[in-house]
């Protein structure tokens, strides 16, 4: 994204480049947290879940560091126009990534409870939803590195699919709970996993909006397409 920028002060360009690279690194950490948390849930791997929970501190630390960098940049360089946009974007994206990390941690926490009961038959559905959300996060972060708004907008438009998955899963889990009260406990935790994934998807769309704003200077117009809201099966 910074290729086009030329500054008389080379240090400024370097700082901007480092900023976006650091945001990418933090994105990698968040992506990794989501992937590992899902792997922990699917493979019933308590150890991996613990690692995810511990690694969240790293993401928080990175957020603080990047925020410091941004404050320094704003104070010393007083960026204008597209530079200002990219600095503000970094600030927003970092906040979304931090929340993503927290949600991944929350997913990992559910593993402990989920492995106490038998595997639920709906785990593949959660896995599929996890893959979809991971794909969205990955493509949005790629778009951030390359500055390709088209794929960011593509992800933004496709958040509907995540909602569709969540809705279907919600109904299936509730239906199973009604059939067999013994799955109420693990089923509830599985629902929270799905809900967290759905929110991670929302953060990915937030990031997509920010990328669109950095590159074009305009906000993404219109209401984000929304899938159906979950409803209780009759």
């Amino acid at each position, binding site marked *: 994204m910074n*290729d086009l920028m030329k500054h008389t002060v080379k240090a400024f360009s370097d700082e901007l*480049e*480092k900023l*976006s*690279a*650091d945001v*990418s*690194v933090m*994105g*990698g*950490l968040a*992506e*990794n947290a989501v*992937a590992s948390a899902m792997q922990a849930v699917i493979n019933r791997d308590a150890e991996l879940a613990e690692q995810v929970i511990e690694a969240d501190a790293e993401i928080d630390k990175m957020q603080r560091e990047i925020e410091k960098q941004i404050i320094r940049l704003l104070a010393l360089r007083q960026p204008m126009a597209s530079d200002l946009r990219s600095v503000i974007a970094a600030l927003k994206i970092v906040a979304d990534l931090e929340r993503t990390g927290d949600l991944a941690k929350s997913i990992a926490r559910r593993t402990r409870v989920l492995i106490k009961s038998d595997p639920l038959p709906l785990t*593949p*559905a959660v896995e*599929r*939803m996890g*893959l*979809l959300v*991971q*794909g969205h996060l*990955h*493509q949005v*972060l790629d778009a951030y*590195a*390359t500055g*390709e708004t*088209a*794929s960011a907008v*593509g*992800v933004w*438009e*496709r958040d*509907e*699919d995540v909602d*569709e*998955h969540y*809705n*279907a*899963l919600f*109904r*299936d889990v509730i239906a199973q709970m009604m059939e067999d009260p013994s799955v109420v406990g693990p089923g509830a935790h599985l629902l929270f996993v799905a809900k967290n994934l759905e929110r991670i998807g929302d953060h990915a769309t937030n990031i997509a909006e920010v990328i669109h704003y950095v590159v074009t200077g305009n906000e993404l117009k219109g209401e984000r397409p929304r899938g*159906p809201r979950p409803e209780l099966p009759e």
Partner: protein
Amino acid sequence: MRARRDPSDNWSKTPADRPRRRDIAISSGLGVLVLAVLLAAGTIDLAVFVGTSLALASLSLVYYLTALTTIEPEARPVERVTVQPADTAVAELMLERITVPILLIGPGGRIERANPAARAFLGLGGEGGLLSATLRQPRVLEAVSAALRGEKGRAVEYSTLAPIESHVRAFVEPIRLELPGPMPWRAMLVLADDTSSKRAERMRADFLANASHELRTPLASLSGFIETLRGPARDDEEARERFLSIMQVQTERMRRLIDDLLSLSRVEMNEHLPPSGAVDLCELARDVAGALGPVAASRSIGLSLDACEGEAIVHGDRDQLYEVVENLVENALKYSDDGGSVAISVRADLTRDAAEHSDERIAEGSGRLTLSAPPLSSEARYGVLRVRDCGQGIDRRYLPRLSERFFRVGGQKSSPTSGTGLGLAIVKHIVARHRGGFTVESAPGEGSVFSIFFPAVRKSATDGNEPVQRGATVS
């Protein structure tokens, strides 16, 4: 890298080390001069003067020769220059041609060099970017920065599961360059694609689990019938006949299941290898419609083909794409009522958004879902094939599970006539292998549309006219 070191050698180190004839001559000359002064002052006599002068001359000669031979091995800049270009040129060429991605990372994590394989693998633009902007794997970045501090190299594994599954082993090795300056360390990063072996491992486990789980049901019923035939029904002619025909149906089902499982395994195994070849979707649609026409006619289902008159050429393996289209049309026929209708349509050169779903929904509030899709790209154009049926449709809550193995809508029991529940899973994997997409739109009571799309083969720039649509009813 050695080429870069040479210039500094030539003008800073070598002159200081090389024995200078003039220096030796001057120092021995000075010695002789001192002796001559002493001779003139009468301190020593002529014989001593001549003797010491000779000794000095021979000493300086010996010194010159020794210095020449000891320093010689390092002071051969001329010869090294003649050898090196060939050396580095060959090394360069090997680096260019090797299919393994190799990168050299400089201070601050900046990519200093990347061979073409690495460029393609990471999608790099120009050189000089930061590694962390393209490869976001925390563990790889950590290993690289350790190597840049001069710590021992290591191997790390990383995987991305979506949008495209890949498993990679990354080897990081520190390299010390003899460069002036505080940062002599570079990190060499070698990436090895491990996807196929990881996939094969998982596939084997999945296959065993699936096979053992799904084959148990027909096996259990078979052994039940055998027991009955040996026991209570031993002399019952009528029951024996009936049981044997049920057993035949069950074994037939087992055979189909094994066939589908094997075919699924094969497709999955090669999923990461892009297919070679080109297929015309229009022609394919005509072939499938021709082949399944009699089936449709026997149930008086109208099978209509709305294919472009031109062609929709996509990258693909013809046999596999045939299987996909056949599968979708068979499904559409299966879920249509007698006397219903099934429509196949083909469109060429659509954008990703247009390829995923048609502009018009089949019904108000119909469910739409993408079951499998390639990474987003704004330039890609796709050839699209849609199969529409007017059957009972699918409730939207089942849409995400459609491509799940052994999933049957509405919990249809595995009756002998029903499918194996693997058909759409096979479709999904073939589509994923072709870097294409697979979507569904459905509304209960209205029917469903299954769409598949594949990357179009780029035609020359002269070809800009829209293909003419034509409707033709087969059967």
